[in-house]
């Protein structure tokens, strides 16, 4: 089409739309001219003017029809129809503001929640990290072959093998995180405990994010046995501690007893490698690292064109080589490579998918609700439809009119859905992250969330509208235009679709309720799990002696710095313990190196038994009386006592799982075990067996070894030297737990005036934090289940109320003919019971199939837990029947005379 013509055509269309009156006026003038010419012609032929006029009228025919068919040529009628439909639709919706509001709100909830969850899934799982070459960044972890879900860090030996024997990566780096003390500067800045990370030189540059000031480490700064006294700090650290000092690069700080020069500041965007790190120092890797200690994080960047699968295959063969070369350390271990994004945010996949299933069900229920509402309304409007059909409205035109209403409702839902989506996002992103995972990044109303909102709105409008539009526009021969007032009550057939929608709603709600019931059940079981110690009334008080205080570097052992422990920190711990014990109001007190449940980092050590077999176990240092204070039952043997000193024979206490696994069918008391750490380590005799305290809330018990804090080697290899200085004192006061804190702090300040206490809290709050992630997620699912149930109840109520409304006359007649309350209730209730029962059966069947999908998120219950299924079913049926009660009461209160007089 030529450009000029296009321009002309569009100008005309626009004129027909915007200046419609003018166009109509012109049309009339044009036709009037023709008419006048016609009259003039007749007069010319000799007719008198009035007869000429009549003749012209005859010749001209129906002017209105002619005008209409001219207007039809404008090609904009669809627009006027649409405008008319919208005006009419809005008027209809405003007639029943209550129902319209409920419908729009429930659609808003469904649309917004779906947009929030799908948007989060898109941002966290599908989209990848916002850094260069995000698709090539990977995390490498080691994994016990017999327990693939328990992913672990890597040993330096494995890292070196990956680095030197593969062709898959163009960079591969290693790091280890630690809590390090930054000294005060003497000018008022106090000492602080901060999170540091030792990294190989490429670690800071592999994301392609440049330091905002200065530089990162060079290879020369991390030679074997040497790491330069330099440090790179985080943006947050620079801002907070140095007031964003522009001259930061010349300054020096003392970290862990070493004076280091600040050479760089990383920008705030540098947060995808490891969360919450305040500073980085160079990590060196010795030429012959020992294989034990899987504590190191390894990240790599695949070479362009190398697939994840081929890299995994290369690493598998290296794992096999390592197992052959050093079976003691590596047998039974494999390697797992994952995309970095999956490593950081992959944990959200399962919760988000489950939540999406939940919100999808909510949206479906909301749609069913709106469809039932529109259906009810369309049967009320049968006479109107009949009238309009009689006046010549086509079926398609009527369907479009009916569709407009559902699309209008959906559009209102979509607009309100923006608010719901934002709230939903906020709720999702505050979902507690698992320990060690970075906080979830903000998403906001990005392009994909907005397009999701749009698509969901259109889809919802069509989904709600299709059945009412088809049924509503069907010309109904039963409806007579002459018939006055309300027509006869709905027939069984006519009520069928609404009833079906009620059943579907109840079924969907039941599936969701059962799913969330199973999750809630799992949560309750986790919270109420018998931890084999008594957390109530226990206060924890963390007290660390910094490693720089007691370690003296004396060389290297297997590639690690090797320290002499001079003035063991246990001496300080002993003094603290005695002071605490002497406080008034303390029933008992004892120390342990880490929280027994849900510790952030668990020390896991290789253990050699008397028959030279090797095992691995979680390892705690403890003071005398620890099990007494924890109130952990001792199965056999004894607790640690004050007689277990460095000079006495070294002893250990094991848990039941360790006893069973290490010495099956034997009495563990008196057996010996040796920790595979340093040559100075001595064999320890098992003197006690205690009940299993699960090391993680939601995991089955693992082998645990407890050793006395006094019976330790005098030399240590990093990083175990750090473990040696940390102690967590468990205080069991006689009164209010936290009332003891000031006295305890004062006592410690007298021993250690310079060192502030970190982390004073109750054990209860620690345990709560441990289940926080699961708790927040289960909470979200439960909220959606409750919403779904509410919507289904509203739907049931709506349909029942409508049925009663429509049958008022029939009920009146029956009452007048002597029907009792029972008959009336049976009349109304019979069909309700059928639909509720159908919903129940379908819901149970659906749940049986679908709950298998959340098996991995359940703990302590099976996906088909009969108690949950039965309990939730009873609850839903009760709610559904309750929703029928009000309509039934209204049916009973029908007054026969009034009902009949209405005719």
């Amino acid at each position: 089409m030529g450009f000029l013509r296009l321009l002309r055509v569009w100008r005309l269309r626009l004129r027909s739309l915007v200046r419609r009156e003018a166009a109509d006026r012109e049309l009339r003038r044009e036709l009037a001219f023709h008419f006048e010419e016609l009259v003039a012609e007749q007069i010319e032929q000799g007719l008198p003017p009035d007869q000429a006029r009549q003749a012209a009228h005859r010749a001209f025919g129906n002017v209105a029809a002619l005008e209409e068919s001219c207007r039809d040529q404008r090609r904009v009628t669809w627009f006027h129809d649409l405008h008319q439909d919208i005006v009419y639709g809005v008027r209809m919706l405003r007639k029943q503001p209550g129902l319209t509001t409920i419908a729009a709100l429930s659609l808003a909830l469904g649309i917004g929640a779906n947009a929030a969850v799908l948007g989060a899934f898109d941002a966290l799982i599908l989209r990848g990290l916002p850094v260069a070459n995000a698709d090539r960044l990977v995390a490498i972890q080691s994994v016990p072959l017999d327990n693939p879900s328990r992913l672990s860090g890597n040993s330096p030996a494995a890292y070196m093998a990956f680095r030197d024997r593969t062709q898959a990566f163009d960079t591969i780096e290693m790091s280890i995180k630690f809590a390090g003390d930054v000294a005060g500067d003497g000018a008022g800045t106090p000492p602080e405990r901060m999170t540091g990370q030792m990294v190989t030189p490429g670690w800071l540059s592999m994301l392609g994010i440049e330091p905002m000031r200065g530089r990162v480490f060079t290879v020369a700064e991390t030679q074997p046995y040497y790491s330069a006294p330099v440090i790179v700090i985080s943006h947050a650290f620079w801002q907070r501690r140095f007031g964003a000092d522009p001259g930061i690069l010349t300054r020096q700080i003392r970290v862990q007893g070493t004076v280091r020069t600040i050479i760089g500041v990383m920008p705030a965007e540098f947060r995808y490698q490891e969360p919450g790190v305040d500073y980085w120092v160079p990590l060196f890797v010795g030429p012959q690292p020992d294989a034990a200690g899987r504590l190191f994080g390894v990240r790599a960047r695949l070479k362009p064109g190398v697939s994840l699968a081929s890299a995994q295959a290369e690493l598998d063969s290296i794992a096999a080589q390592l197992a052959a070369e050093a079976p003691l350390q590596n047998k039974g271990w494999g390697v797992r490579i994952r995309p970095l994004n999956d490593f950081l945010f992959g944990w959200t996949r399962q919760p988000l998918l489950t939540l999406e299933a939940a919100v999808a069900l909510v949206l479906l229920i909301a749609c069913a609700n709106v469809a039932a509402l529109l259906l009810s309304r369309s049967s009320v409007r049968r006479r109107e439809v009949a009238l309009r059909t009689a006046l010549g409205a086509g079926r398609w035109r009527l369907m479009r009119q009916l569709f407009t209403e559902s699309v209008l409702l959906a559009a209102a839902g979509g607009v309100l859905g923006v608010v719901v989506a934002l709230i939903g996002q906020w709720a999702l992103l505050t979902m507690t992250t698992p320990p060690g995972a970075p906080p979830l990044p903000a998403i906001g109303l990005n392009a994909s969330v907005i397009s999701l909102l749009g698509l969901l709105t259109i889809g919802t409008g069509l989904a709600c509208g299709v059945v009412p539009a088809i049924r509503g526009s069907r010309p109904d021969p039963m409806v007579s235009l002459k018939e006055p007032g309300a027509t006869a009550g709905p027939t069984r057939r006519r009520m069928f679709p609404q009833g079906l929608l009620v059943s579907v709603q109840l079924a969907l709600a039941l599936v969701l309720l059962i799913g969330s019931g199973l999750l809630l059940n799992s949560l309750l079981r986790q919270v109420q799990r018998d931890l084999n110690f008594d957390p109530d009334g226990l206060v924890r008080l963390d007290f660390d002696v910094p490693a720089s205080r007691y370690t003296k570097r004396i060389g290297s052992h297997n590639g690690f710095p090797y320290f002499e422990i001079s003035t063991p920190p246990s001496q300080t711990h002993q003094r603290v313990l005695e002071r605490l014990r002497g406080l008034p109001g303390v029933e008992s007190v004892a120390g342990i190196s880490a929280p027994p449940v849900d510790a952030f980092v668990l020390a896991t050590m290789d253990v050699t038994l008397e028959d030279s077999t090797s095992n691995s176990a979680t390892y705690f240092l403890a003071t005398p009386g620890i099990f007494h204070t924890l109130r952990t039952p001792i199965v056999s043997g004894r607790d640690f006592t004050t007689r277990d000193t460095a000079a006495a024979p070294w002893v250990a206490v094991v848990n039941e799982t360790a006893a069973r696994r290490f010495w099956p069918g034997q009495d563990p008391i008196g057996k010996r075990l040796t920790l595979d750490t340093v040559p100075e380590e001595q064999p320890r005799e098992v003197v006690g067996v205690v009940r299993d305290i699960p090391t993680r809330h939601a995991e089955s018990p693992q082998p645990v070894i407890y050793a006395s804090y006094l019976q330790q080697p005098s030399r240590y290899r990093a990083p175990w030297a750090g473990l040696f200085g940390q102690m967590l004192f468990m205080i069991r006061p006689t009164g209010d737990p936290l009332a003891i804190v000031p006295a305890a702090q004062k006592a410690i300040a007298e021993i250690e005036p310079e060192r502030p206490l970190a982390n004073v809290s109750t054990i209860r709050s620690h345990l709560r934090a441990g289940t926080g992630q699961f708790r927040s997620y289960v909470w979200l699912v439960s909220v959606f289940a409750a919403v779904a149930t509410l919507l289904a109840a509203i739907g049931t109520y709506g349909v029942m109320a409508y049925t009663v409304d429509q049958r008022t006359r029939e009920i009146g007649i029956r009452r007048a003919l002597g029907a009792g309350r029972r008959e009336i209730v049976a009349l109304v209730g019979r069909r309700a019971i059928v639909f509720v029962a159908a919903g129940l059966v379908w819901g149970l069947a659906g749940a049986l199939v679908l709950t298998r999908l959340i098996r991995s998120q359940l703990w302590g219950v099976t996906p088909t837990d009969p108690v949950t299924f039965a309990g939730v079913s009873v609850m839903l049926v009760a709610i559904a029947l309750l929703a029928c009660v009000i309509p039934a009461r209204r049916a009973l209160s029908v007054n026969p005379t009034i009902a009949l007089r209405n005719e």
Partner: protein
Amino acid sequence: MPKPSDLLQGTLDLLILKTLSREPIHGWGIAKRMLELSDDVLTVQQGSLYPALHRLEQQGWIKAEWKDSKHGRNAKFYALTREGRQQLERELMSWKRLSSAVGLLLKKA
């Protein structure tokens, strides 16, 4: 390309375009002239004429302008646009093809 249209409508469009090709003229004049030129054979009813004119205008083949007619009354005059002239050529060609085909068939059958 013109849309496939039925013979009658297509023919009316062709006749209108052809009639307008000489000079701009109003609807009444078009009807009169078609009658004259066809020796009183082709009467076009206003019920067909005006919708056709409006359609052709909406398609951009003809344009309208209000001018005084020779009796001094204001009337809506239609004129061919440049594209309308090309459209007329196309319609003429296809009409000729069609009528010669019909002629051939009638002669040979």
